């Protein structure tokens, strides 16, 4: 019973060698911007870390208002390595969203959404929304004061949207206020609904990438380009990145553990100076600065509708900039992209400084 005979046995049943042949063919273009190719895989790896640590946390977490905080406290104090698993889960969430943004912007600037990759882009945009929802729902689960206030403010903002806002708010909160019902609902989203949806979209996204192969920047389209085999060369490089990511997560967990905070109290006033997590901060800061009334419309509503509009535009990117031929459109898109990126970074920094 050697490795070879086992592989042969499996191959007869699972067509492994056919898969291996396809995998063998996958190549990664090498050019100045190849470094950005790592970020998709890194996001996927961090997602896998989330799934594993999340399942482990599920063994002890209790999703009710009376027990949630105490169960997280229990995990962090009584369960062996509970502190490690919990801090990794919280840190990895943030790192994943960071790499996701980097991946998205790099794909945008490198135009990896040109035909035939439109669906890949759309599924990626859907994954962005799903991951943001993961972050928002997961943040409430420890049921501490900070999370409670953040959820209250966040769902309040969702409720501001005209016409559908109120039903959306009630749907999210499981009622009119943030209560234990909200917690249970968010838990359901976080461990069942969102993972299922994410799996579907990740499957679409990754399979399409394999189908279409790796894209090249517009300048290099049609040109001969050095390629590197995915297996084993690029994969091993990916692996180094992932190994280092594990190291970073372990260091963050041990040196800067995620806080527990104080148990949420529905009747206490919001703690002073509450801020949402960094990936919402730029939106939060923007809304804070919009004047109360703009051209007769409520400023906050206008701000939120603008963000919603931008999100819709994001989905439509490959349908607006459709082909590599249109250099002017590409230029405009570049400018818009750079402005957006700079705006987000600036507002995030501002949010932290004030």
């Amino acid at each position: 019973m050697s490795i070879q005979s086992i592989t042969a046995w499996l191959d007869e049943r699972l067509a492994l060698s056919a898969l291996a042949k396809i995998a063998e063919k996958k190549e990664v273009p090498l050019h100045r911007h190849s470094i950005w190719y790592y970020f998709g895989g890194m996001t996927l790896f961090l997602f896998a870390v989330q799934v594993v640590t999340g399942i482990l946390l599920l063994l002890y977490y209790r999703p009710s208002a009376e027990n949630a905080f105490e169960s997280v406290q229990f995990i962090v104090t009584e369960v062996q390595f509970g502190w490690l698993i919990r801090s990794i889960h919280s840190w990895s969430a943030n790192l994943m969203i960071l790499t996701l943004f980097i991946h998205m912007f790099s794909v945008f600037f490198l135009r990896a959404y040109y035909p035939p990759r439109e669906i890949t882009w759309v599924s990626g945009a859907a994954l962005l929304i799903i991951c943001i929802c993961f972050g928002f729902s997961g943040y409430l689960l420890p049921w501490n004061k900070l999370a409670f206030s953040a959820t209250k403010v966040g769902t309040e903002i969702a409720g501001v949207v005209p016409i559908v806002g109120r039903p959306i708010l009630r749907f999210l909160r499981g009622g009119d206020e943030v209560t234990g019902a909200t917690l249970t609902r968010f838990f359901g989203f976080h461990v069942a609904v969102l993972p299922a949806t994410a799996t579907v979209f990740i499957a679409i996204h990754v399979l399409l990438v394999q189908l279409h192969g790796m894209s090249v920047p517009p300048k290099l389209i049609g040109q001969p380009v050095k390629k590197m085999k995915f297996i084993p060369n690029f994969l091993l490089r990916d692996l180094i990145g992932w190994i280092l990511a594990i190291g970073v997560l372990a260091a963050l967990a041990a040196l800067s553990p995620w806080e527990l905070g104080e148990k949420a109290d529905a009747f206490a006033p919001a703690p002073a100076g509450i801020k949402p997590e960094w990936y919402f901060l730029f939106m939060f800061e923007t809304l804070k600065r919009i004047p109360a009334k703009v051209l007769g419309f409520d400023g906050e509503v206008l701000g939120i509708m603008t963000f919603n509009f931008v999100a819709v535009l994001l989905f439509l990117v490959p349908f607006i900039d459709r082909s590599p031929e249109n250099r002017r459109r590409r230029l405009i898109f570049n400018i818009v992209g750079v402005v957006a990126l700079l705006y987000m970074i600036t507002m995030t920094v501002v949010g932290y400084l004030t």
Partner: protein
Amino acid sequence: MSREQIDATGNTTAAGPTRRTFLDWLVGGSALATLGAIVYPILKFMTPPRIVESTESSVVAAKIAEVPKNSGKIFKFGNKPGILVRTDAGELKAFSATCTHLDCIVQYSSEKKQIWCACHNGQYNLNGKNIGGPPPRPLEEFKVNTRGDDIVVTRT
């Protein structure tokens, strides 16, 4: 398994594992070790800890024998103190032991058959109601059940 090989620098390597296989062993070995360093905490995590669940919503306050008639006992309920009282009639009652005036810990007075706070002479009756002295509100009442020998107090 030793093979003769001509590697990149043109050196022939003699018998024994070649640099390549040595590196392979190294990769495999350290990969295994790192994997072990990851799997070990995970396995430990999944092993039930000493205290199997958090004692915040329900706790064994005392054994039945420890609380005779007309007596009280302080117990720990999560992060807060609680008081377990057995009345003259034999009924078991449990309350939060934090006085509603200035947060001192109350006690049971068997002479007065009341709950009393030593700090400023606050008095509560055996329903937890504040009946004398400064306390402005009643004591929070908990549910009491017995399970075998144990008295189990649950937050309502």
